[in-house]
C-alpha cells in the first residue's frame, strides 16, 4: 500500500515517517513545497482566531478564573495544526495520470478517491494563487459537466508539471474527437 517517495535516511516505519507519502500503488505525490503553502494557509486561518482569543482574554475576561485558558488552548491547537497538519495532508494527496483518466486521491479522515475520464473534461485551468507563487506550486483545475463534483482540483503541482498535465489531458480530448 505504501511506497517511499522522498529520499530519506530515517529508520522510521513508512507509516510514521512524515517524509514518505502514503498512497496506493501507482500514485505520485504532489510537490513537497505544497506543505508550505498549506502551512501558510493554516497560519493565516489561525492567526485571527488567536488574536480574537487574546483580545477576549485581556479585555472581557479580566479577573475571571482560568484567565488565559482560551488563548492557551487556541495557541496550542493552532500550533499543532500548523506543525502537524500540512505533511499529513501532503502524505495522503496523490494523483495518477492514466491513459484515459485522471485519478486524485486525498485525505485520511475523509478519504476521497476521484476519477475523471478525459472524455468528460470540458475545460481546464492552471491557477496560481499568491501562496502558490510564494512556494512555487500551481493547481490544475478540471471542469466537467457534472452537477456534483463539476470542478475537480489538483493542488500542489510544480507549474511546468501542471502545464504538462494540462497539455496531455487536452491532447486526449482532441484524439477522442477526431
Amino acid at each position: 500500500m505504501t511506497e517511499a517517495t522522498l529520499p530519506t535516511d530515517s529508520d522510521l516505519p513508512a507509516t510514521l515517517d512524515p517524509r514518505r507519502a502514503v498512497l496506493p500503488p501507482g500514485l505520485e505525490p504532489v510537490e513537497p513545497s505544497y506543505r508550505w503553502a498549506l502551512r501558510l494557509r493554516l497560519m493565516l486561518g489561525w492567526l485571527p482566531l488567536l488574536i480574537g482569543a487574546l483580545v477576549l482574554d485581556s479585555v472581557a475576561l479580566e479577573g475571571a478564573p482560568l484567565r488565559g485558558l482560551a488563548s492557551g488552548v487556541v495557541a496550542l491547537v493552532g500550533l499543532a495544526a500548523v506543525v502537524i497538519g500540512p505533511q499529513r495532508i501532503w502524505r495522503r494527496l496523490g494523483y495518477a495520470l492514466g491513459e484515459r483518466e485522471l485519478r486524485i486521491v486525498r485525505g485520511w479522515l475523509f478519504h476521497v478517491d476521484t476519477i475523471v475520464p478525459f472524455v468528460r473534461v470540458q475545460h481546464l485551468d492552471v491557477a496560481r494563487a499568491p501562496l502558490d507563487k510564494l512556494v512555487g506550486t500551481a493547481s490544475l483545475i478540471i471542469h466537467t459537466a457534472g452537477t456534483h463534483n463539476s470542478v475537480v482540483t489538483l493542488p500542489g503541482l510544480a507549474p511546468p508539471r501542471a502545464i504538462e498535465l494540462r497539455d496531455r489531458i487536452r491532447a486526449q480530448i482532441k484524439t477522442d474527437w477526431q
Partner: protein
Amino acid sequence: MSGEPGAIPGPITGADANPGAPAPAHADAAAPPPRERLHPLSLVAGLGTVFKQAWAALAGGIFLAAQGQTGFALLLVGVATLGTLGSIAVRLLSFSYRIDVDEIDLASGIINRNERSIPFDRVQDVNIEQNPIARLIGLARVKLETGASAGAKDEDGVLDSITLARAEALRDRIRAHRAGAPGAGLAPASSAAASTAEANADAETEAIFAMTPRRLLQLSVFSFSLAIVGALFGVAQTYGDALGLDPFDPDFWRANLERVGPLQNLVLANRAVTAGFGIVTLLLAGLLTGFVRTVPREWGFTLTRTETGFRRRRGLLTLTDVVLPLKRVQAAIVASGPVRRHFDFAKLTIQSLARDSGSGDHSIAPLATGPEIERIIAAMGWPALPDEGAPWQRPSRAFIASGLVPAAIFLLLPAVVVTAIILGRDDWAAALGGAGPTQFSLLAAGLWLGAMALLSLLRILDWRHRRHCIADARLYVRRGWWRRGLVILPLDRIQSVDLRRPFWKRWFGIADLRFGVAGGSGFAAHRIEALRSDEAYALRNALLEPVR
C-alpha cells in the same frame, strides 16, 4: 455598425504585432500563434458597467451635494467611478488570450493568476454581445459556453471586449472546427444549441403517453395534501394578532358563535357532528389542494416521439410545449410513493441538460402504469428495465451498523446531558412525580433503547430495499422502502466518480460511490452507499470501462 471590419483584424499586442492575416487562419503554422490582448477601447465599452455600479454612489453624491457638501459628493462619485474603471483597466492589462488550432487559451489575473484552456470541441455556444457603447465603437463581448456546470457564478470563458470582426472570426473558426469534427455530439454535454433546432424540424410520429381525464383525477387524488392547513396555521400564527384571528383559541370560536346567536347552542350540543364536519372539511381541503396543484399543470399531458427525442405538451392555463432531445438525457428516474405503488403507478422523470427550463428534471410521465413506463423507455431506445433475475447487488450489511453508530452517539449525548441536568436539581425530580434517580435513569435508557430499536428497524428496511446492478451499459440503482426510486444511469453519462471512505466507514470496511452527472436539480448526487471496499473499487472500474 461595426466600423471598418477589416481595420483591426490582427493582434493588438503592441509595436511588433503582425498586422497581416488573422491568427487563426494559419492553422498549419508550426509556431504557436501569438497571444492577443483585449481591445484598449474596452475601457470605453465598459462605461455602461461603470454607471451601473456607480449609481448608488451617484445617488449618495446627489444627496450630499443637496446638503451642500459638494466636495464629499465629488470624492464619493470619483472613487466609485475610478474603482470600476480601474478594475476594467487591470483586466485589460492582465488578460490575454491565444487562439490556437483547436483551442483557445485565456490567461487572467495578476494576484490570482489563472490560465484556462478551452478546447473548441467543447464549446457549446458562442455568444457575441454588444451594448450600445460597444456598438458605437465596434467592440463585442464574447462569451464561450462549454457546458461545464460550475454555474452562472463562474462564466466559462469571457472576452470583454474585442473587436466585432475578431469576435466573428473566432465564432466562425469554432463553428468550422465543430462542423469538421465527425464525432460531434459525442460528449454528453454537447449539442445544446444544435439540438433544439434539429428537434423543431422533426416530424412527430406517435403519442407515447397521454394523461386521460380519469388518470388526471387519480393523480389529483394521490396528490392529496394538507399543506394548505399548515400554511393557514402559519398565517394565523404570523398575522393572527393583527387580524384578530386565533383559530386555536376556543374563546375565538365562542365569541364568533355568540355573534351568530341561536346557532351556538346547536353547535355546542352536537359536538360530534361538528367534529365530523371539521374532518370532512379537512378532507375536502386536502383533495382540493391536490386538484389545484396537479390538474392545471398536467391537463392534456401528451408525450410524443419525434425524430430525435420527446415532445411534451401539457397545461390548462399555461400551455407548455417542451422538446427533449434524447441526446441530452443524462439519467432517468422511476419513483413512486406507498399509495401509488399499491395501485401499480409510478412517475417517470428524466434528467437532462436543460439550461432553458431552470431545473434539469423533466417529468415525462406523472402517473403511469408499469407497462406504460416500459413503453416509454422502449421508445427512448433504452433496454427494458432489469427484472428480479438480473444480477442485483446489495450494499454491505455494514450499512445498517454504520448508520446506527453515529445515531447512537448523537442520541446518547442529549440523553445523558438532560438526565444529568434533571438529576442535578431536586425540585425537577419532584416535578416528575417523585421518581428516584435510578428510575429516571432507567426511563432515559429505555427511551434511548426504544429510539434505537426504531432506527434499527428503519435502517434494516432501508438496507433491504437498496440494490444496484449493471446491465446493458447502464447502472440501475434502487432505493427506498416508503418512497421507492429507481435511477437509470447510462454509463457513458457519468462525468466523474468519487469513492469516499471517511474514517468511520473505513472501520466498517465500506465505501460510498458518488457520481457526477450533468443536469438534474442538483439536490443530491446519484450515489451508492456502503459497498464493501473491494467491491466499490471493482464497481468503479466496471463503470468506467466504456470510457477507458
